[in-house]
């Protein structure tokens, strides 16, 4: 587990509503491996000229789900998202997930929303990922509210990737904006691209203050059983007082 170990920086706590029964300090910081807050309805904003949105959604999913869970999962794309960023490629998916994918290629945003809601109401799905391009009329606040209610009711985690979209009104519990970041050089060939890294900004969340993180997927280590338990994601604060590598590794029992 990784978390901030230094003192809390000056963050706009006034905008954050901690869940009942938790102190503001406990509720403050988002950190990976945080499974305790019920089902997730998360939106990830990204541009369509890179694959960071879907990759981060997968990293969040790996971070959250139980590795022993072998239920299928759903990936819904509308036509425009499929045209701009391509179709999932099985050899490139994380090893533990690739044989369990059900892919839905929807013709329109309305069909994609229908498929997502059906998926969220299915008890036999481990999680649902959606990819929708732009700001379609059908995806308004009512639609996102329906998603939130379905996620809370049936407990299927849900990540919606918004490609080239405006930050419109939504009831998602967490809203991220993600950009790719330079990857760490691999050990044996420093000239090659390494494991993916992303610079993710949490700009709205219920129960967490906003912030900006440098995230790295550690899916390979976790699924091979070599990484620390439960760590699907490595995180590092990059904004505010947390510069200069103020983060350190803490014991997994945090």
């Amino acid at each position, binding site marked *: 587990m990784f978390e901030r170990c230094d003192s809390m920086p000056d963050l706009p706590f006034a905008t954050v509503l901690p869940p009942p029964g938790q102190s503001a300090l406990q509720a403050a910081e988002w950190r990976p491996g945080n499974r305790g807050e019920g089902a997730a309805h998360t939106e990830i904003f990204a541009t369509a000229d890179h694959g960071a949105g879907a*990759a981060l959604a997968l990293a969040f999913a790996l971070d959250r789900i139980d590795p022993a869970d072998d239920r299928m999962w759903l990936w819904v794309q509308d036509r425009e998202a*499929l045209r701009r960023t391509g*179709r999932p490629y099985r050899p490139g998916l994380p090893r533990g997930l690739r044989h369990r994918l059900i892919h839905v*290629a929807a013709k329109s945003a309305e069909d994609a929303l229908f498929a997502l809601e059906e998926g969220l*109401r299915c008890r036999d799905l481990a999680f649902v990922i959606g990819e929708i391009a732009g700001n379609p009329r059908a995806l308004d606040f009512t639609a996102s509210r329906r998603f939130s209610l379905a996620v809370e009711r049936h407990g299927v985690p849900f990540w919606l990737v918004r490609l080239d979209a405006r930050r419109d009104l939504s009831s998602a519990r967490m809203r991220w904006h993600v*950009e790719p970041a330079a*990857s760490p050089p691999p050990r044996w060939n420093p*000239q090659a*691209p390494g494991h993916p890294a992303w610079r993710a900004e949490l700009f709205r969340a219920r129960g967490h203050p906003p912030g900006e993180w440098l995230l790295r997927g550690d899916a390979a280590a976790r699924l091979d059983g070599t990484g620390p338990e439960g760590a699907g994601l490595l995180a590092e604060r990059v904004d505010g007082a947390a510069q200069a590598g103020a983060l350190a590794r803490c014991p997994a029992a945090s």
Partner: protein
Amino acid sequence: MPRRVLAIWCARLAIDRWRLGEGLAPGEGADAAPLALIAETAHGPRIAAANAPGRAAGAAPGMMLADARTLCPTLAVAPADPAGDLAFLERLAIWAQRWGPGSALDPPDGLIVDISGVAHLFGGERALLADARAAFARRRLTVRLAVAPTAGAAWALAHHGPDDAILRPRDDPAARLADLPVAALRLDDATITVLRRLGLKRLGDLHGVARAALVRRFRDRRSPAANPLIRMDQLLGRVPEPLLPVIAVEPPLVQRRLLEPIRHRDLLDRVVADLAGDMARRLESRALGARRLELGLWRVDGEVIVRVLELAAPSREAGHIAGLFGRKLDDVDAGFGIELVRLRAPWTEPFALAQGDFEAAAETHGTSLAACIDRLTVRLGAGAVRRPVPRASHLPERAQGWQGPLEPEKPLQDTFEFHDRPLKLLDRVEPIAVIYETPDGLPRRFRWRGQVHEITRAEGPERIAPEWWRERSSTRLRDYYRIEDGAGRRYWIYRLGLIGDGRGGVPGWFLQGICG
């Protein structure tokens, strides 16, 4: 009670079926001229059957069409339909159960009916045969019939004996059938050739040879069709020959005749919901679940509207079925009204009885995966809901296939994963303009979708050669590079061909994959 068996040989089944399909009487219209049914073989069209003028002109089954055309240049042809003939024979076997409780197929063109203890209902075996002959004549089928104590003897008499032959129980079959040729033993051609070379041409000849000699000659022939001794024992009734009966299976069917033709959607929904409930009860009584359902709507003006539904897993949940059909009925034109609604389940699978799952349960506990897939498939189409499966190919776009979400994955040898693959693949590769070290160095900079990317890190090339056994010889090889630009965006690009490989001009660059 002695066993009695009726053998029916539809001697001209293929031609009779063709004639029935054309709606012709024998010798009328196209049937008056020479005609042959042909089957396509590796060596060209071969005649499967010929009508009477065709046979008179020299066309025989098994002959090449080109040979027959030299004998009779005016020979007309039509395609043979062996699968249709077999299906027709199956229906005929069900129909033939009017003369006995059990009937069996004798492919390609015969039937065996067990008529033990039945003949007195028709007034004797002679009258039964007359009845059968008249019934087949009404259907315009050429048949030869025979009745005997065993299936083998009845078959031999039908194919090689006199018309309407009857072998009575007190007759000695060995003596009565001694004059028939050995082909009457239902043997394959190679065995008949062997017997002919041995000089054994009639059934009586077999009795003249010491049995021990024949046993030694055919000791390694286990199949009855290759061993004349087994066939002879079956014919004489010394060893039993069980018949594999044909049993009609009626697909579950429920229907509602409506006193007042309905023209409104809500009434139709109610009828469909009622039918789904009836169908669920019928399926439950047989411990079946439906995989395919057909809803037929008969309109007052005679038009029939059919809606077909396929389910991802066997199901008999009335609410689920009615809901799925509800989406398919939006474009139904009721016209002057619908007077008959019928629901059939042509494809069912065993489905054990289980605790019923009600809509309320689905609301609180979520739907099952199969129900979810059904709903997605009905609205989005079967092609839209799929799962990726590996395929045996090293070309990246061909290494992944798509199949239905609940079909099991075919076992396939796992591939070595020496190289990282991108998270996503574009459906159509996009051409990019690249500055690189010629002739085959690392790429430095590229332009894609109107934006220039400086490449800071690259790994490659990973050379993937074309699949020469599938593609043209001029297909160029691909050199793949995994690259990362200054902003950290990672892509998978390739150069198509080499400078001077003789397969085209300057190599082009393409972007195929987007990494996470």
